């Protein structure tokens, strides 16, 4: 039996079929040479002749145990990282796919149980967290007929309402461009078309999605954004970030918690595989909607195919990749500040929080204007140098982009930068301090009046 995740049985024991205790290298080799796992047809957790229907961590599980296995991982991630406070209002980012569908189902169940406890409680001192759903509508970039798009959007809404969600935010992606201009769609299309690289375009849209979610959360008073990013997606990100030279910032993207954004982002499905989540959607008839997905042609899809091939050889490969990336030191913003948690924080969770008495509690570095990656030393030096000699706002905007975004997102012609930045949402460019540029005359206009360094006065 192939080796599986050590946490797959949740520590409660899987009986005689538990792979972590009984597998040998010879058995693994035999199983792999047959091209499939040799998995028992009986549930490895509850046994008793109950038929297994799903494989998790190399063990066959019945439907109930499989579901409990995944819900257990989700709940453990939420509680052990204190992701959701009783006073929080959580915005779940729903893409229509299986991972975020499962996240929606599980957070709804956690909330339902919390409400039952609250109803039964005499004091009712602590409130129950709220949950809303956001869907970023990217159909403006989709070539499908309007009728199909409208039906897909209606499906998204019906999925949210079927789970009992009352607050659904269906926001067109172009809205992030529309704050100062009515032609958000035009600006979005033009900005995307200016990016030559397929992978750069995909990554730019990914950044816009986060921007849209942040905007929805800020405008509606949500305090946390929950993503459905799963272990498989994170494993792909680890490899694709490495390929793109984003190694310095990689630790920031693979943790449970990310507070560098105005509204903190949490990833409770980080330990679940895409395959497991797809399977759960089928077994539990959880409706998904992926009709608006666009084909992908760049590095990201190539890496996803590569990871799938690795998984074919060994189902644990995705977990191995994520565990390896976890060895990188996270940034200070990958922990919540203890401020605001004091009333709810059990002592066992205190190490998970930033030490508010320590200077590390506040991240003082620079984040990339486009992707939010923390700047490395080289990028910081370049920025400092540019601040002193910048003659145009565009120079400062460019210096506030990380090397990866400069390479794959900014247009290939330097003379196009000004136009590109003029299209970007003010939500982004407004964060760059350009006061020093606006008050200084361009050097070439006053060159003849400047003294050379070696002139005698």
């Amino acid at each position, binding site marked *: 039996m192939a080796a599986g995740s050590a946490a797959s049985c949740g520590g409660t024991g899987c009986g005689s079929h538990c792979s972590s205790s009984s597998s040998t290298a010879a058995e693994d080799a035999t199983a792999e040479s047959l091209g499939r796992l040799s998995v028992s047809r009986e549930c490895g957790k509850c046994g008793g002749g109950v038929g297994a229907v799903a494989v998790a961590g190399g063990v066959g599980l019945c439907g109930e145990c499989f579901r409990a296995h995944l819900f257990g991982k989700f709940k453990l991630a939420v509680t052990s990282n204190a992701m959701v406070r009783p006073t929080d209002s959580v915005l779940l980012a729903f893409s229509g796919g*299986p991972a975020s569908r499962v996240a929606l189902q599980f957070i709804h169940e956690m909330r339902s149980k919390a409400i039952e406890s609250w109803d039964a409680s005499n004091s009712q001192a602590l409130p129950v967290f709220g949950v809303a759903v956001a869907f970023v509508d990217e159909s403006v970039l989709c070539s499908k007929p309007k009728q199909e798009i409208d039906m897909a959007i209606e499906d998204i809404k019906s999925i949210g309402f079927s789970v009992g969600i009352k607050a659904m935010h269906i926001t067109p992606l172009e809205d992030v461009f529309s704050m100062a201009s009515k032609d958000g769609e035009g600006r979005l299309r033009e900005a995307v078309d200016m990016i030559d690289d397929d992978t750069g375009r995909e990554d730019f849209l990914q950044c816009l999605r986060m921007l849209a979610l942040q905007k929805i959360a800020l405008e509606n008073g949500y305090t946390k954004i929950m993503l459905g990013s799963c272990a*498989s997606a994170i494993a792909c990100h680890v490899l694709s970030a490495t390929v793109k030279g984003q190694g310095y910032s990689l630790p920031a993207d693979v943790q449970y918690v990310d507070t560098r954004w105005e509204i903190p982002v949490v990833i409770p499905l980080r330990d679940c595989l*895409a395959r497991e989540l*797809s399977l759960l959607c*089928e077994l539990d008839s959880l409706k998904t909607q*992926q009709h608006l997905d666009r084909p992908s042609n760049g590095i990201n899809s190539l890496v996803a195919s590569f990871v799938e091939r690795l998984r074919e050889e060994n189902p644990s490969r995705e977990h191995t990749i994520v565990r390896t990336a976890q060895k990188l030191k996270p940034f200070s913003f990958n922990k919540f500040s203890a401020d605001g948690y004091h009333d709810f924080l059990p002592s066992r969770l205190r190490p998970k929080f930033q030490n508010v008495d320590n200077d590390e509690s506040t991240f003082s570095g620079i984040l990339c204007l486009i992707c939010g990656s923390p700047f490395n030393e080289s990028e910081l030096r370049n920025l400092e140098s540019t601040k002193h000699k910048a003659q145009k706002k565009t120079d400062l905007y460019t210096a506030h982009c990380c090397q990866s975004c400069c390479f794959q997102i900014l247009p290939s012609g330097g003379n196009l930068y000004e136009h590109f930045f003029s299209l970007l949402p003010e939500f982004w460019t407004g964060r760059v301090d350009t006061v020093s540029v606006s008050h200084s005359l361009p050097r070439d206009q006053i060159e003849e009046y400047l003294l050379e360094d070696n002139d005698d006065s």
Partner: protein
Amino acid sequence: MHLTLEFGGGLELLLEKSTKVHKVDVPPKDGEGKVTVSGLLSWVKSNLIKERPEMFLKGDSVRPGVLVLINDCDWEICGGLDAELEEKDVVIFISTLHGG
């Protein structure tokens, strides 16, 4: 052998009219009247897949990232490619490459 096949996660786009559910009659390959998953895949490739077969199949098996369920059970439990299908079985193929 009468079977119900379902395609999801984008695989339906490889089929005619992007139809997700197909009720099919698959002839057994051998003289014993048995249909295995391996035989079914071969039949699907020849009769249902209209474009880009490499998105569904790799060699004799499904492409990595395609989940196969036989009567709501992971095919790895049922015997994989050698699993024997029975009359009125429901086989579901789902692509998990899209994440979500």
